[in-house]
């Protein structure tokens, strides 16, 4: 039972604690932040997470992943990674494997995640032109990538309309079908298909802004106010009766 706190109950209410904290309840954290979990594509076995915090036209970008192939030709395996844009804002599924070789190639995934908007390189060029530059790609089986990048207006608008997708490329050739192992990359013909095919994917979505409204305060005020009111009233009545009893005595 919950009634207005403005009701004053003699005797009873005074004994009850009131938690009163004066603080303004306003929205927190300006700017837009996006996040995604990176899920494996093509049975890569990897996983990770990405966050994009936009401030004006630049963004603090963090991409962490683990479980991808670590070595390639004796050196660290380069994993090119991008924010793809202007597609369906989703990650491809095996039904997008149009040539049935058991691998979703970068091209086959295109309709789902779109074209490269920003290359998440370790240094230098971040434009789509740097998309297959393995010299500035994170290398090894896991990474904790952090870079502040100026985003193009295309990438910014895709983030806002929910079609930004983080894709990390580079599969272990041994996990591919025999047929696919012999195929050339659809992007860089000098490389095998495994090297450029998508290994992790996550569609970016807005982080919630600020806190949550998980309560009505029903347990923060005074419950059973009616019972307290009746109880207080009865005590007052008892007092009144005793007074009139005294008057009766005095009158005798």
């Amino acid at each position, binding site marked *: 039972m919950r009634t207005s706190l403005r009701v004053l109950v003699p005797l*009873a209410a005074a004994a009850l604690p009131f938690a009163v904290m004066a603080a303004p309840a306003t*929205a927190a954290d300006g700017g837009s932040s996006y996040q995604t979990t990176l899920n494996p594509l093509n049975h890569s076995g990897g996983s990770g*997470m990405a966050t994009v*915090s936009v401030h004006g036209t630049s963004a603090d970008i963090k991409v*962490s992943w683990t479980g991808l192939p670590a070595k390639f030709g004796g050196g660290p395996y380069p994993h090119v990674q991008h924010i793809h844009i202007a597609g369906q804002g989703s990650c491809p599924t095996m039904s997008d494997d149009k040539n049935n070789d058991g691998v979703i190639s970068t091209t086959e995934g295109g309709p789902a995640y779109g074209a490269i908007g920003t290359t998440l390189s370790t240094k230098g060029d971040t434009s789509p032109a740097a998309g297959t530059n393995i010299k500035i790609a994170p290398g090894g089986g896991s990474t904790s990538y952090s870079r502040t990048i100026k985003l193009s207006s295309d990438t910014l608008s895709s983030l806002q309309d929910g079609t930004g997708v983080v894709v990390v490329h580079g599969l272990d050739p041994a996990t591919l079908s025999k047929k696919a192992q012999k195929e050339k990359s659809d992007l860089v013909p000098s490389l095998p298909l495994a090297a450029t095919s998508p290994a992790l994917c996550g569609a970016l979505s807005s982080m919630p802004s600020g806190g949550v409204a998980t309560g009505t305060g*029903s347990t923060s005020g005074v419950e059973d106010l009616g019972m307290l009111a009746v109880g207080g009233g009865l005590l007052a009545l008892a007092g009144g009766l005793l007074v009139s009893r005294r008057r009766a005595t005095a009158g005798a």
Partner: protein
Amino acid sequence: MVRLTAVGSRRGALTALALVAATVGLILIVTAVLAQVRAPQPPRAVGQIDAEHTGSASASAVPPSVASTPGATGKRPLLASLPTRITVPAIGVDSKVLPIGLAPDRTLAVPQPGPNLNRAAWFKNSPTPGQPGPAIIEGHVDSDQGPSVFFKLGQLRPGDTIHVFRKDGIEVVFTVNAVRDYKKSEFPTEVVYGAAGEDPVQPLLRLITCSDFDASIGTHTGNEVVFAHLTATHHKGARSTH
């Protein structure tokens, strides 16, 4: 003589009435006072979040003092699978978990009146519990029906465990490493939802509810956040999740 008797009996009746009124009144007040419930007020800050000593987080009221390294006990992340049930033995929570999205104002939506009002809700854009990064599960502290699913969240302390049961039959166990009470006006979005400064490849869990009710404006001004990290996974096969 007649007059005196009348006065005497009137006095007796008044005394009896006053006694009855006082007794019933006291019983009602004591009963009502005993029925008062109040959510345990969380401490400003206990335990440690990695984000806070890398300098990337919003300033917290109290610097962390308990040394613990969640990353050191990290478990290998799992693939995605929806959470269906959560139990928190230390505070008697056992609830179904429903997926929930963003409200039109881009804040995290909350369970609405109906069968799910007093159930826990998992933010569907966050990782599923056991995946890399911070899975978000929220619940009301109270509702118009009284105490709600996360009423006692303020009692949790580092070391307590949280168990989440997933659709794939895997039970993931998280251990609390920190509890924070934030003003909503200073809510550190990126620390809570984005794991800023923490190892985001590690599976993490946040439990969120309301705190710091302000009677003068009729609303909660704070959010309590419980920070936990994965410490065990139990593969029990396909178990029912009523």
